């Protein structure tokens, strides 16, 4: 074996298959949601606490930064949800071929993308 052959372990220049990208996004969105869920639970707690708390949350969600935070959090929920459904489908033995995985990865990106855009419309329109 030629020990001097070039080796590329730079993660930024290795070409990742689509399935690898959808998988790492599933993890990244999950890690982010540890914080994101805290934001949602905090809003639930405030909004149920009192009429003032409810109005405070309503007013907060008029602020651009809060709207953006909500959109990012809901986007993580949506992506994690759709990628999770793919996981459950594959647990049932569906789409376990190389082509099947590619098709489902495209499906995850497309469905999550559409839902994330619609959520943005719901928040800002």
């Amino acid at each position, binding site marked *: 074996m030629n020990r001097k052959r070039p080796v590329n372990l730079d993660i930024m220049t290795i070409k990742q298959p689509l399935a690898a990208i959808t998988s790492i996004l599933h*993890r990244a969105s*999950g*890690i982010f*949601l*540890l914080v994101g*869920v*805290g934001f949602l*639970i*905090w809003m*639930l*707690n405030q*909004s*149920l*606490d009192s*009429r003032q708390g*409810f*109005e405070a949350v309503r007013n907060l969600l008029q602020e651009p930064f809060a709207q953006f935070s909500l959109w990012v959090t809901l986007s993580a*929920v949506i992506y994690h*949800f759709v990628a*999770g*459904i793919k*996981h*459950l489908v594959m*647990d049932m033995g569906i789409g376990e071929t190389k082509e099947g995985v590619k098709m489902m990865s495209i499906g995850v990106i497309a469905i999550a993308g559409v839902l994330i855009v619609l959520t943005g419309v*719901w928040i800002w329109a």
Partner: protein
Amino acid sequence: MGMMVRSVTNWGRSGLSDWLVQRMSAVVLAAYTLFMASIFVQNPDLTFSEWQAFFDVTWVKLFTLLTVLSVVGHAWVGLWTVATDYIKPAIIRFFFLIVVGVTLFVYLVTTATALWG
């Protein structure tokens, strides 16, 4: 099913129970997400009274509590896996998992207080 692999930081549970917890909690989380999304889409101008009345229904409280319990289990298994994969020094990994555990406990208590407090 062969030998169960155990390690100190997964608190004596097995990979199989992790797998089951992750799937069952995922189904609950997916159901609650769809449920709440439909509530928000169908009621764009919720008032405080409506919001409070909605969360005053016992099965809504229980569904919400079950969902937060699912968050605790799901996030613990997920972040335990991620920590085991990416955080190599045991001390830092242990500290990270303590932060995760405390955070999830606070989420559970906060939600229970919001619902019954």
